[in-house]
């Protein structure tokens, strides 16, 4: 492997930054998402009863979200595995056909010039 080619590739693929405007907007959006009620981190003071209720509600919501995310992640993984399996099937059959073709070529060349190849069929 050419080390020069690899170092050229690394140079070409060096990370590039998005615009400053994008970065500012992103930080603001994420911060806003943090401050929204569903993402409250307990910054505001609450009464103990309200805290307990809020904790239960948050946990329930978190569990639902986690379950949803889990399902989404599982579905995505399933899809990825399926697509990978498809790719492997095609590759396996391609390799098989390639080797069958190799045998065929030998047989074909044997029938035209038997001196070059050992009879095999």
């Amino acid at each position, binding site marked *: 492997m050419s080390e020069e080619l690899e170092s050229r590739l690394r140079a070409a693929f060096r990370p590039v930054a998005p615009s400053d405007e994008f970065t500012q907007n992103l930080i603001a959006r994420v911060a806003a998402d943090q401050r929204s009620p569903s993402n409250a981190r307990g910054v505001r003071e609450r009464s103990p009863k309200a805290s307990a209720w809020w904790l239960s509600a948050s946990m329930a919501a978190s569990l639902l979200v986690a379950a949803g995310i889990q399902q989404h992640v599982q579905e995505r993984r399933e899809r990825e595995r399926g697509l990978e399996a*498809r790719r492997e099937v*095609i590759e396996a*059959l391609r390799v098989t056909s390639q*080797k069958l*073709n190799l045998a065929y070529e030998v047989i074909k060349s044997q029938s035209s010039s038997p001196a070059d*190849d050992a*009879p*095999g069929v």
Partner: protein
Amino acid sequence: MRSCSLGILFALLAASPAWAAPNPRLVLPEFSTLAQKATESVTITLDAALLAMAGRFLDGNDPQDAATKEILKGLQGIYVRSYTFDRDSAYHQADIDAVRNQLSAPGWSRLVETRSRKSQANVDIYLMVSNNQATGLALIASEPRQLTIVNIVGAIDLDKLHKLEGQFGVPKFDIDSPKAPPPNTKK
């Protein structure tokens, strides 16, 4: 007494899996030594569950996918081990003896044996047949810089495999039925 002994024997044959129908699935070694020496390795292990999963992602409208789907019907497994080396004779025939020995077991018939002095490529193709139907295929391709072993388990439809010509470059096989090779075969 004799009939009693025979009865016991048949019972043993029926009960013991070791005496059941020949197994078209080969036990493929790890080939760790070959993998270490190889510049490229292809290891594909697809059992029935994975084949079924793959089948769900094959597009019936695509000719290649549709042909592949047809082939997959009735298959229970596809196993490929392929190693490419950067020099000749990096592997030895002894490395694949463990596979060849299995193919000399009852049930396997060598369908094709090709030896090319020109390209130094040897290809052996074996079939396992049960009730006049191919139930397993094994292929060993030995080339100077590449070794490939393929084992396909299941109801192989040779006609469909033959029809893959053009999709994967599979050659036309003049095989009417998976019977013993015709005369002039070099054993």
